[in-house]
């Protein structure tokens, strides 16, 4: 059994790791649709999105490993950490649900990630800025594609609307975590690496409100519930994803494609 690795605790590394893990786990969840999407064309669209996200995570892992000097490669960072050392937001680890749930989560996350990448494009870290410049184009497309489905299903049949409303109610509870700033955000903002995620709440809400309006869905009230994935405390679903993801690297240490 390969021992687990520990990522750098440096604030800059942790800041980038939150973004990388969020992309990685969402990509993993979307990959589950491969062969199961409602139509062939959408199956390809969802897996394209998954591969974009995993590509973004890879670029970030490679950069984190190089800049923090821990000597871990991207595979080790992706597959050989303990659950508590993954710092993705909880929203992306929730089971994929039905197509309405997946589309709405994609719309929420691509809107969020687009805002993050847009700001990272002017990061003081040149490599991070370059990664962001490429990723923001991908995020813009993900947002348009997922947003269209939210409108079609929200403003669709009674059944599609019911499913979209229930997805909205379920997912909205996990939104506050995205914008809960902490010491890592403050340090990133001060050093010019990237934005304090709490500063993205207003633009995110403005874009989501416009989308939900178009889908004839009401913006839910904020709940008092707080998820805490980005501090390493995950939902009960996280262990199952990691078991899936890590099996090969644990069973065949150092195995490569």
């Amino acid at each position: 059994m390969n021992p687990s690795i520990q990522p750098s605790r440096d604030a800059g590394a942790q800041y980038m790791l939150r973004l990388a893990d969020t992309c990685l786990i969402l990509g993993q969840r979307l990959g589950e649709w491969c062969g199961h999407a409602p139509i062939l064309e959408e199956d390809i669209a969802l897996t394209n999105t998954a591969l974009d996200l995993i590509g973004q995570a890879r670029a970030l892992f490679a950069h984190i490993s190089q800049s923090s000097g821990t000597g871990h490669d991207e595979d080790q960072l992706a597959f050989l950490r303990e659950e508590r050392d993954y710092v993705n937001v909880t929203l992306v680890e929730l089971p994929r649900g039905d197509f309405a749930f997946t589309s709405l989560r994609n719309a929420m996350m691509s809107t969020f990630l687009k805002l993050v990448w847009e700001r990272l494009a002017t990061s003081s870290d040149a490599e991070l800025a370059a990664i962001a410049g490429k990723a923001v184009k991908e995020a813009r497309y993900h947002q348009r594609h997922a947003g269209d489905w939210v409108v079609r299903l929200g403003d669709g049949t009674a059944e599609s609307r019911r499913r979209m409303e229930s997805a909205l109610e379920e997912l909205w509870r996990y939104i506050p975590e995205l914008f809960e700033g902490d010491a890592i955000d403050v340090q990133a903002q001060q050093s010019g690496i990237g934005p304090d995620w709490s500063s993205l709440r207003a633009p995110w809400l403005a874009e989501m409100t416009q989308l939900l309006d178009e889908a004839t869905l009401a913006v839910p009230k904020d709940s008092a519930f707080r998820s805490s994935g980005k501090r390493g405390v995950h939902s009960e679903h996280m262990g199952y994803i990691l078991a899936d993801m890590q099996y090969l690297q644990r069973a065949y240490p150092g195995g490569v494609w």
Partner: protein
Amino acid sequence: MTQATEWPLWEVFVRSRAGLDHKHSGSLHAADAKMAIQLARDVYTRRQEGTSIWVMRSDQITASDPGDKGMYFDPMEDKVYRHPTFYKLPEAVNHM
């Protein structure tokens, strides 16, 4: 009136990076033109094939009847004089 249970079929035309014209790439099912363009992007331009996409509903195409093939196209077989191969071109336009 019967309710459609399948989305209509669309023909996809993609213009490549170096190409001047849109070429037929294939077809797909989509609920409307907007969705057809997006799905065409995902299905037919995944390997950098395109810089522009056209879609049109397959049922908007009027095609010649395969049964007319003989009458339509065979009479051209013996009219080689319609190919401009009998002219001597000046050196300057060697590669026409």
